[in-house]
């Protein structure tokens, strides 16, 4: 019996070691601790301090005094949101059950897109919808127009085959990426593979690998190779604006490296850092950029927006025409 008791005692002793092995769990978190946690996470892992020219210590000095334990959750949220928005990055968000912070990339420039103007004045009423692509002929059938509103991860090879085959005899193709807020990067490669004439390095990427603001991995070349049974190597124009963001900007920076693609419209909204995701001690969640995308000559500044090759502005005073689309049609004629 004594041995049985000994075994049971040993068992209970060992099984109670969990608290000793693990770090202490905090069930109540102060507002100051939540603020400091977020500031530290961004300080260690955010990838664009230098490009954005942000002094993060100065940001701490500015916003930390606005937080004290016991302030309302809404006040804490607003202070932390303002702190994050100093980064001017659409990939930076704070989220709680009552609010979500964001940086408004559309406010960086004027509105350059109105889908109704295009459907009313350029496309037939029964324009085609092939998966994520809305498309038809414009300019009396000489040019193909494809509206791609979102990188939803549903770009399908059959859709692409159909679309590109339909416009194979046109003079050129317009791919409208305005107000395309991004999504799944894989879609970008599925599209670009149809346009590149040969294997091309289109941009470089590197990722934070240490807590210093300059700690990055070696840059990695992103290479796109021709693929797909139907390809289009005639001139192509990508329409972009400030609403072209994230995967839209990745597509734009890549397009700079493709000789038969021209970017037209306004500078994109940026968003060239892949955002992570995490949770604060108070349960709120956040995300911010942790990678840098570099041009072929190693410049990370396109995070602030990929500039068009041809700058054209939309005139909202005349809603019978889209000046950017008109410019693209003229360019391809």
């Amino acid at each position, binding site marked *: 019996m004594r041995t049985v008791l000994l*075994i049971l005692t040993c068992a209970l002793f060992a*099984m109670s070691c969990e608290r000793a092995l693990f770090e202490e769990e905090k069930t109540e978190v102060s507002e100051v601790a939540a603020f400091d946690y977020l500031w530290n996470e961004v300080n260690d892992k955010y990838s664009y301090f230098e490009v954005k020219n942000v002094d993060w210590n100065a940001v701490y000095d500015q916003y930390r005094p606005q937080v004290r334990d016991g302030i309302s*959750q809404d006040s804490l949220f607003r202070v932390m949101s303002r702190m994050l928005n100093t980064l001017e990055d659409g990939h930076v968000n704070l989220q709680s059950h009552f609010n979500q912070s964001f940086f408004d990339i559309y406010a960086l420039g004027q509105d350059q897109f109105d889908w109704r103007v295009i459907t009313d004045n350029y496309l037939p009423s029964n324009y085609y919808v092939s998966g994520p692509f809305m498309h038809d002929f414009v300019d009396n059938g000489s040019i193909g127009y494809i509206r791609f509103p979102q990188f939803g991860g549903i770009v399908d090879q059959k859709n692409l085959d159909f679309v590109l085959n339909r416009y194979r005899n046109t003079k050129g193709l317009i791919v409208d990426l305005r107000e395309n807020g991004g999504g799944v990067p894989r879609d970008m490669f599925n599209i670009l593979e149809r346009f590149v004439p040969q294997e091309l390095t289109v941009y470089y*990427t590197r*990722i934070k690998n240490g807590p210093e603001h300059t700690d990055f991995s070696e840059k990695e070349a992103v290479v796109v190779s021709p693929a797909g049974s139907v390809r289009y190597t005639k001139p192509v124009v990508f329409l972009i604006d400030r609403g072209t963001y994230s995967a839209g900007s990745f597509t734009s920076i890549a397009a700079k490296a493709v000789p038969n693609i021209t970017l037209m419209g306004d500078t994109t909204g940026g968003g060239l850092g892949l955002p*992570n995701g995490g949770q604060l001690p108070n349960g709120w969640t956040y995300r911010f950029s942790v990678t840098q995308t570099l041009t072929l000559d190693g410049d990370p500044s396109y995070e602030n927006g990929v500039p068009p090759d041809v700058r054209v502005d939309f005139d909202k005073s005349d809603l019978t025409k889209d000046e950017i689309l008109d410019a693209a049609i003229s360019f391809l004629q």
Partner: protein
Amino acid sequence: MKINYLVTLMLITTSSSVWAWGVDSTHKALRKQRASYVKVTMGLAPTNFRDFSTSPLVYRSPLTFHAALGYEREDSLRYTFIGADFNRGIAFNSINNETATSTFYRSSISFSRLYAIPALAIDKFHVKVGGSANITGNYRLNASLGNNSNGQEIIGTLFASAQGVMDISRTKEKNKKFLFIKYHLNPIKRQLDYHLNIGVLNTNYRNGFVYIGQSDLTTDPETFDGYKWRVNGFRMNTSLRYTKYFSSGNALQFSYAWDAYFTGDEPEKFEMAQHVLGVSILFNTRK
């Protein structure tokens, strides 16, 4: 003289052969007698974990499903086990009116070999020591973590192991009475054992500094993007088992196992603990 030498040599050789044959046959006989079982286990495995790379909060899953399959050979001299288990649960964290859930899967394969220490055998109690190896893979899905919603790691550990085994068999028939109810108890073989594993080589295959990798931005996405093998952290597990053997040679086992591990601070600590309440059926393969 020469004949004597040869005879002596023959006798030594013969006796050595006989001795060697004797040892070999004893080992073979023991091996044949050693009970072996296919073990099927089902149970509940309350689990908690914390991945500091994405959150300082602990996620708990009280109703984790646990299933295991193993092969066990055991007698008073040696214990061998090889097996695999699978766990699935939905873990929650709720704090400050915010709730997040993480669906997780955990599976592992393990191997143990222990040998009896005769000096530590007392009456019906004996101790075995040896080593164990375990590889555990975790996968978690927590949508609230955005691009870091997929969490995965591999934990590989070599353990120093010890097992205390107590034979608590009833060797004689007994007639008992509870209040006015008389009942009869037959002899039965039973065993209580306690198993302790202490990690001596703790390795893990975990994420890079910012958790997510950058391969999704390339044409060559990787599952374990930026992952590295690291030697750090600590793992420990214990189990307490009660086994009741039937006349058929099969057995029923009730167990409580506890497993806990944490990785080192690079890149950031990961902690996980699991408490498994299991019921096992052991099918005797040597009937």
